[in-house]
Structures are given as C-alpha cells and as structure tokens.
C-alpha cells in the first residue's frame, strides 16, 4: 500500500448522481487488483474528517478509476472535483477477489447493485484476460441507476439489467433476476457480488441453495482503511467460532459462506 498525495484527475464523467474519475497514479495502478480499494481524502479541511473508501473501478497502465454516487458530504465534495485537480489517495488496500485456476474456460456470474457495480468492471476485464467468461447482472432502482451499461457492452460481455421500478430490463431486484437465470440456464461456476447488504444476503442465499461458491465485496464506513482503528467489522466464521473481523484488512471480499449476517 502506498500514499499518493497528488493523484491528478485526468478525466471526469458524470451522470445524474454518479461520477467517474480517472486518476493518474502509476505506482498504485501497477499494484492494483480487482476488489481492492482506495482511501480517498476529499478535502484537506477538518470536516469531513475521514477519508472515504472507494473500490477500484478500472485500471490501465498508469491510471485507476473510481466510480461512485453522491451519498453524503464526502462524496458530494468529491463529485465537484474537476479535471486537473489532485487527490490524496492511499492504496491499493484490502484483499481483492480471487480467481481460481479451475475457472479457466468457465462461465461466472458478476452481480452488482447500484454503485456496487464499481469493482466488477475491473474484475470482468481481469477474468477475460484469464480466459474466464463473465456474465453481468446489473441492478438499480431506476433506469438512471445503471449508467455503466454501455461500458460493459463495449467489452462485449452479456449484461442482464434489472430495475426496481421496471423502467429498464427485468422488473424487480437484481437478486430475483439472478435466481431466475440460475434456474433457467446452466449455473455459473462462481458468483462474485458487490452491493448493499440486503442484496448481498439474498445473493449469498441463492448461491448457497445451489451450491455455487460466492465471493462478496462488503461495504463499510471505515476510519482508516489500514487496519488500525478496528472500526469496520463484520461477523465472520473462523472454524468453530465467529469473530468481528476488520473488513479493510481481511476483506473487503469474503467467501459468502463465512459471513454471518445480523438478525433480520
């Protein structure tokens, strides 16, 4: 992990609530793997105080991309940044998705809800490079909530779209669309997912019921991102016991089977 105090924004693209920033940070780009994240300082003032954790959306030789939505004070400030501005970032952090050798030549499912789609683009490209065939399940609240459709289409990857209000694609949750597809076609060898906790829980249940291994990238409020504050924890199975495990350090990607969800 490195601290790049001045990663310059070389390109920016905005949709309604979504923003994509392309950052020039060669040393971090070189080390980045899908599923890892950055801690981004949005301001050098004391409020908001903490850095914001953002997953790495894409990587080229010298650049990394972040894709996020305005979700509060921190991301609002970040969304106002312009091309040419610089950001103080730390990364790449955490353990990313793992791609087992056994997946060579096989089909896998990538399930993203809302801004949770962010790390799955990087993952999709990496999978393709390793001769694994990704199929993407992309869900949002409305048709304005799935702005990356064309970007995936340009990779010539099959994308199934769902919206909660039915304004585009399947009408309903992305987890419901996933279940329908799992029952219709040959099941994928592996599922990777990122999105809000309720979605992830349904994906985990759908995968477990069909004995499909699933890796979930969890979201959390983080104090530091480097394992020092112990603020971002999830209950994780460790053999016979369970403990609060730091998402930043041992995650953000966990096997679905090791995650213990809170009582509903």
């Amino acid at each position, binding site marked *: *992990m*490195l*601290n790049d105090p001045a990663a310059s924004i070389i390109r920016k693209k905005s949709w309604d609530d979504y923003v994509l920033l392309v950052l020039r940070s060669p040393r971090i780009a070189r080390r980045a793997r899908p599923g890892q994240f950055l801690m981004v*300082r949005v301001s050098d003032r*004391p*409020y*908001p*105080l*903490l*850095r914001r954790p953002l997953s790495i959306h894409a990587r080229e030789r010298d650049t990394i991309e972040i894709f996020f939505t305005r979700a509060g004070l921190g991301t609002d400030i970040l969304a106002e940044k312009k091309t040419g501005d610089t950001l103080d970032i*730390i990364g790449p952090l955490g353990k990313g998705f793992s791609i087992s050798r056994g997946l060579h030549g096989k089909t896998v499912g990538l399930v993203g809800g809302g801004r949770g789609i962010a790390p799955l683009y990087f993952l999709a490209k990496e999978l393709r490079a390793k001769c694994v065939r990704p199929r993407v399940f992309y869900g949002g609240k409305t048709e304005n909530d799935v702005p990356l459709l064309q970007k995936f289409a340009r990779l010539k990857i099959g994308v199934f779209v769902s919206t909660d209000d039915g304004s585009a694609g399947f009408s309903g949750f992305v987890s419901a669309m996933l279940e329908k597809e799992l029952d219709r076609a040959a099941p994928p060898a592996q599922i990777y997912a990122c999105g809000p906790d309720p979605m992830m829980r349904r994906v985990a249940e759908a995968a477990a019921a069909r004995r499909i291994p699933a890796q979930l990238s969890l979201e*959390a*409020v*983080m*104090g*530091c991102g*480097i*394992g*020092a*504050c*112990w*603020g*971002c*924890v*999830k*209950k994780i199975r460790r053999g016979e016991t369970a*403990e*609060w495990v730091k998402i930043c350090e041992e995650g953000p990607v966990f096997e679905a089977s090791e995650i213990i969800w*809170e009582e509903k």
Partner: protein
Amino acid sequence: MKKAKRSDLSIDLGFLKLRNPVIAASGTFGYGLEFKPFLDLDRLGAIVVKGLYLDPRPGNPPPRLAESASGLINAIGLQGIGVRAFYDKILPQLEDLKTPLIVNVCGNTDEEYAAVIEFLNKDGRIDAYELNISCPNVEKGGRCPALSPDHTFSLVKLARETSRKPLITKLSPNVTDIVSVARAAEEAGSDAVSLINTLLAMAVDVETRRPRLANTLGGLSGPAIRPIALRMVYQVAAALQIPVIGMGGIMTGRDALEFLIVGARAVEVGTANFIDPGASLRIVKEIQGYCREKSIDKVRDIIGTLRTDNG
C-alpha cells in the same frame, strides 16, 4: 545561504528519554506494524500500542464509528488480541524497533490491570506502561476508575506496586474536576499522566431515530475536542510536579506546540493517524520547522512558556 542549524527536539520525561516530543497514541496506531509502510517508526518520539486486556476481547457490534463535525465518535469496545498473543506474536516483530515502546494496559477489574502488568514485566523491550483507567469496571457497575479520584488512587497504587516499569496514567476528560483525578494519580506514584482520552458523545440518525453507534454512546476524538483537551492539559500541568503528556485532536505541528506551550512535556497524536498515516512524522517535521524559523535551539525550552501578561 547557510542552512539553519537543526533544533534539538529531544525530551526527557525523567524516566524515559525521547528523540522528539511526538508519540503515537494508543488505539490509533494499531500494534505499530500497520504503519510501517507509511513512516519510519524509529523517527517517532515513542509508540503506544493498542490497549491490552489479559484475554482477547470481542469488541462491540457495528456500526462502531460515526463521523461528526471535525470529529469522530467511536465505540470499538477495546477489541483486541489479549496480552499473551501480543507477547507471542507482536512483540517479536517489534524487537528491532529503536523507538521507546509503551504498552496501554486495560482491565475489567483492578486485579486484571495488575495481572497484565505482571505478565509484561518480564519483557525487556517494553519501556513503560500507560494505564488506561477509562475501561468500564465490572465490579463498579461499569463505572471506570478515571471517574473518581479515590478509585484512580487505589488502582494506580496497585499498578505502581506491581510494575517494574515506569507508569503513565491516562486520564478521562469526562469528569468535573480533572485536576483532582490527576493529583490522585500523582500521589499514588504515577510517573506521568497523559490526557485527554475521548469525550463521551453520541449521534442519532434522524431518519431512523436510531443511535448511529450500535453501542449508543461512544468517545469523541479529533480536532473538535482540541480546545477542551488544551484547557485540561493547561490546568493539570499547572497543578502537578510529574510530566504531563498532552493529546486531543492534534493534526499539525502547530497544534502540538499549543500543548507544549501550556506545559505538556510531550504530545500524543491519535485520530490524525487515521486520516494521514504519516501524520506523526509530519508533525515532528513541522515542529522542527517552527523551531528553526523562531531560532529555538531546543524544543524543551518552549514547554510551559505560555505568556499571560499583557506585554
């Protein structure tokens, strides 16, 4: 142009010599190792590792953090690996460290504090203990020792009798009269006091009307608390003979200098480590820069030099 001479930043606490007055604060610096990628640990004044109980502690359920204006409220619940795992797994990795190592000692009961100290006494690497007297005490209905001068006195006395190393007592700001608690620690034989720990606080999500922390209450840290911390350090430094280590929302060298000027012999840097993992070392450099600029040869010469006259 001739380069200005480097100022002497060294500090003598009496029981411990520091190369500079900047110490990484307990609970914000992990076990030290987490920060190796970001700074040279040997260039810090000292390191205080995360609080240790005798046994591993599970900690509180999430959410454990709530950000507030210029501050952070946390309710981690002192999750930790326990003193044995620290001794077996972490200490060997800190063997080569040249910086003084201070261990923050916790306990559910007074006896547990003593047991942790006794366990660590045999180690030669640890330079001092920082007694975290803000732990909920199970024999006192969850009230922590720091809330009462009497309990502070009896606990520090027990720790003093058990300890073969210097003892720093870390005070809580959640009291009416911090000076009386500080005096109790001094009278019981503490070698120094450090202050302040976090301020008891809370935050509510008005959409759900739920507390933003699973634990409802948490401890506020960060720049928001600095003026309160500074006031308390000023009061305690004026009343005590033993060294005072100041902390609370220090983000920059100038923040640290405020504490030195009101009488702190050294400072601890806490929450700043989360935002900027290199903060402690940056603060050392900023203090060095200030001293050079003002032609101050030795940083210790500015300790307790607050001017209150009208000149």
